[in-house]
């Protein structure tokens, strides 16, 4: 297959795939141990003719083998999972070059987005379908975490640092954004949405909003101020 696998390019697809893989992995381990324990509990219950355990005598060599072999089995599984986790991590951290950048300032209790051309929105991020979006995030007060469950991604925003996350909206539709880091009294009400529009519709809206900004450049800081107090 010459074509790159889709899950390597899209974190949300990669997440679902790795989640499935890890769940299969841990279910096998868990069921094996649970069945073994349950079987021992049943088989070695105390009976009138069995009042004492009959523990196997472990030679020192067997004791070492019983340690070293499980260590290698567990480590093999750990490194297998680590490799897969790292691969998906790279997908999450490598933002595609062809992308839309949006600045996000979070605050108690709103998400304030600023587009490259100066257009600002609050609690609603409009993006075109088919183009990866990267958010450069900071916070003006407490910690917040911009969580988009549908795109399987979140990252904290905080004062004094810029963090980022990206996602790849493919089809027009709406997606919930909700705060995942305890930020204060109204934490649970701090939510917004991502509206994915058909590309042409987005361009029309984006141009129209930009046009509104053009005639009064001096109004920009003022607009920012009202948003803060809102």
């Amino acid at each position: 297959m010459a074509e790159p696998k889709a899950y390597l390019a899209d974190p949300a697809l990669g997440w679902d795939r790795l989640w499935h893989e890890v769940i299969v992995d841990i279910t096998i381990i868990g069921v094996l141990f649970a069945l073994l324990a349950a079987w021992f509990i049943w088989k070695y219950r105390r009976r009138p003719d069995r009042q004492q355990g009959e523990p196997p005598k472990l030679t020192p060599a067997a004791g070492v083998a019983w340690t070293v072999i499980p260590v290698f089995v567990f480590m093999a599984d750990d490194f297998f999972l680590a490799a897969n986790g790292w691969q998906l991590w790279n997908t999450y951290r490598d933002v595609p070059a062809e992308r839309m950048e949006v600045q996000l300032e979070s605050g108690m209790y709103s998400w304030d987005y600023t587009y490259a051309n100066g257009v600002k929105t609050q609690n609603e991020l409009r993006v075109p379908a088919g183009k990866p979006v990267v958010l450069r995030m900071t916070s003006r007060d407490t910690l917040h975490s911009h969580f988009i469950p549908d795109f399987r991604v979140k990252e904290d925003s905080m004062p004094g640092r810029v963090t980022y996350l990206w996602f790849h909206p493919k089809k027009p539709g709406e997606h919930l954004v909700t705060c995942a880091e305890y930020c204060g009294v109204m934490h649970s009400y701090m939510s917004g949405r991502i509206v994915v529009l058909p590309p042409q519709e987005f361009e029309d809206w984006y141009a129209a909003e930009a046009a509104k900004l053009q005639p009064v450049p001096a109004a920009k800081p003022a607009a920012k101020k009202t948003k803060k107090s809102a």
Partner: protein
Amino acid sequence: MNLKEWIFTTDHKRVGVLYLIGSIAAFGVAGVMAMLMRLELSQLGPTLTANPTQYNIWLYAHGAVMILGFQIPALTGFFANYCIPLMIGAKDVAFPRVNALSVWLFYVGIILAILTFFIPDPPDVMWTGYPPYSILTTGNTALYTFTVLILGFASIIGGVNFLTTVVYMRAPGLTWNKLNIFVWCTLAAFVLQLIFVPVLGTAVTLISFDKYLGTHFFDPARGGDVLTYQNLFWFYSHPAVYVIFLPFFGVVYEIVATFARNRVFNYAMVVYGGIFGIVALSGVVWVHHLYVSGMADWIRIGQMVTTLLISVPVGLMVIGLVGTLYKGAISFETPMMYALGVIFLFLIGGLTGIPLALPSLTLHLSDTYYVVGHFHYVMAVAGTFAIFGGVYYWFPKITGRMYSEFWGKAGFWLTFVGVNIVFWIMMDVGVKGMPRRYYDYAQFPQFEHAHQIMTFGAGIIGIGFAVAVINWIVGAMRGKPAGDNPWGSMSLEWTTVSPPPHGNWPTPPSVSEEWHPYGYGDGRVSSDEAILHTPDVPRVS
């Protein structure tokens, strides 16, 4: 019974019982907080209170009191105090008065924690107390700081005491390879406390400095950094998970070995692989709590590997436990029911932690109900089951009386069913996106039904634990005399009378070369006979 004798006691067993009473009271208070939260969440919108701050205070109190007021004091306070001197054949701890001081400090800490419900503007900072919110809030962050400092100090002086006791006061003949697994586990936990508690103390002190004295450790506008706090906090608080895990797993080992009447499987593997391995790794995995906090990529990947490797020593300890069942002669009294319950709950809890070791999967799972479900299974529920099983196990030794087996098992099954209802569903809604620490969930109306079932399950858990505590109180007052060694255990604490007198044994015991706390299967039936093999040890009557 004289109250003054109890308050001014220096007897390690009475100090232990004081720890038990205080921590069970704390468990009750924190449990009521959990019930209030579950009732609040049983419907969309305001249910019990229209004030989110009220909910946040319950949540703060539930977390802080369960961890700092119940689990750590019950395990490193009650079990360590009561069992360690008896298990090593000592007449008391090395510094009995320091021991009394630590239990007094513990009560001061508990009283501070309870003050949360009586002061105006109580702390609403969660048990993690992250700045900037903990500095900006009108809630009383100082109360949080001082609660942590007092309980931490109590724990540190307890640690010094027990390390000295085990190193210097073991009975003649009781070599390091004859220590009970519980003693090893608790020693390891105290080593972790001594290393890491000061870091937590520093972290919570610095937030109060920032809030009340005008410093700027966590204020980026003046050169501080908010992430520093999270690093300091988790540098302690992840090892704190092992401070809870190690002793509770030790308790489970004691119960399983006794009721299976079997040798602990591969003792050296459990001690030198499992316990030592956990201590070695515990200080280099804290960043998995900060996977979505904006830490540098290289440290997130590095600690992904160390976090996954924790499964190696923990896996060895699980193998040791399941192996102890192999070819045993298992009976199913209440303590064993709780201990076997821990095996299954811990399997679920431990394995559901593996997705959370991967930073990539955590970008979705972090701060959701999945995390809450996971850590309740692995630490809160498994730990509490071990504590309850342990109290049942040593109940005949502590009181000299027997509890009701029927009500013991009834309480076990109620809680076992209840916790699986609550925390399994909790993980499921978490994967679907439900974030934690939410007073209301208007964005997620589809989860209302699941929340109702969880509230119902929480009610069952509450009834189950209440049945157990009432069973203890009734048993302590009216139970049948239990005898000195009702379970037929080989371990040293069962060789003295129940309840043991001040000084534990009329003459200090010593142990023979063949004796081992888990020396079952050599044709000997109980520890009394085992100890008879040493001619110079007088039999306790």
